[in-house]
């Protein structure tokens, strides 16, 4: 007979926000989170990295969200020990999902710096097209690893995991 052990402690969200996918909210949310990280963790470096992560994840979520009442975004920040997680849940246009999966897979197959330089080279070779630098920025400038979870109802959650210091 085995003894039941207590479940591992689950980090409580430090920030949990829900709002409609509107571009003009991004600046305000990013600046609040920058202030929050700076004040809570006493590190300007984390605050700057958080700004990149939040700007780029929210921009992607807003750009590709479907309309309607279900399209609300959820931003969650949680930390445990030295690990900090930023995640954004959204309801994207299903046509966007294969592109996102491919982009994440391509980025994950390279080091953050290689993926960053490759994204710049691609942008330079595709004038007039969307920059598509955001995910590479999160990994290299934000020093965070990215993962994608597909949730019931067509929602997805992009999580960026990094360290506090």
């Amino acid at each position, binding site marked *: 007979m085995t003894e039941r052990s207590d479940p591992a402690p689950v980090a409580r969200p430090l920030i949990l926000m829900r709002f409609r996918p509107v571009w003009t909210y991004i600046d305000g949310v990013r600046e609040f989170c920058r202030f929050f990280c700076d004040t809570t963790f006493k590190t300007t470096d984390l605050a700057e*990295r958080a700004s990149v992560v939040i700007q*780029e994840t929210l*921009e992607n979520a807003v750009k590709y969200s479907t309309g309607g009442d279900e399209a609300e975004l959820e931003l969650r920040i949680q930390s445990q020990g030295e690990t900090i997680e930023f995640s954004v849940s959204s309801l994207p246009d299903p046509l966007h999902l294969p592109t996102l999966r491919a982009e994440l897979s391509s980025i994950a197959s390279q080091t953050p710096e290689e993926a960053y330089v490759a994204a*710049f080279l691609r942008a330079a070779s595709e*004038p007039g097209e969307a920059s598509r630098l955001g995910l590479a920025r999160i990994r290299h400038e934000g020093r965070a690893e990215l993962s994608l979870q597909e949730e019931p109802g067509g929602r997805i959650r992009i999580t960026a995991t990094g360290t506090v210091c």
Partner: protein
Amino acid sequence: MLNPASLAPPDVTSVNISVSAEGVTLSGSITTKEPDRSLGRFFRTVHEAALQNRLDELRVDVRGLSFVNSSAIRLFIDWAIWVSQPTGPRYRLRFVRNPNVTWQRVSFPAIAQLAAAHVVIEDGA
């Protein structure tokens, strides 16, 4: 030399732009959805003025630019590509950055790699 009077900057909330005979100084932040429509067109006008005036070097001072989104970084990539065209008149594009600002420290070396012979990165105070 550029003629600042002929290069009126666009009115973009959150970013201050000033033009001098040597180039452009930017401060604030750029997080608009489509900065190419305003700032991108302005940068192109400055680029064309630099070619027309046969400048050897154009200075773009971004030290005061505290934050930009990836669409704004794309504008600097485009500018680096414009000055690296293999034929025709050219000038050296000098970005003056603040290495203490994360996005500036990380992104400008990658931009310089795109046009190493024509782009110079200078660390300013």
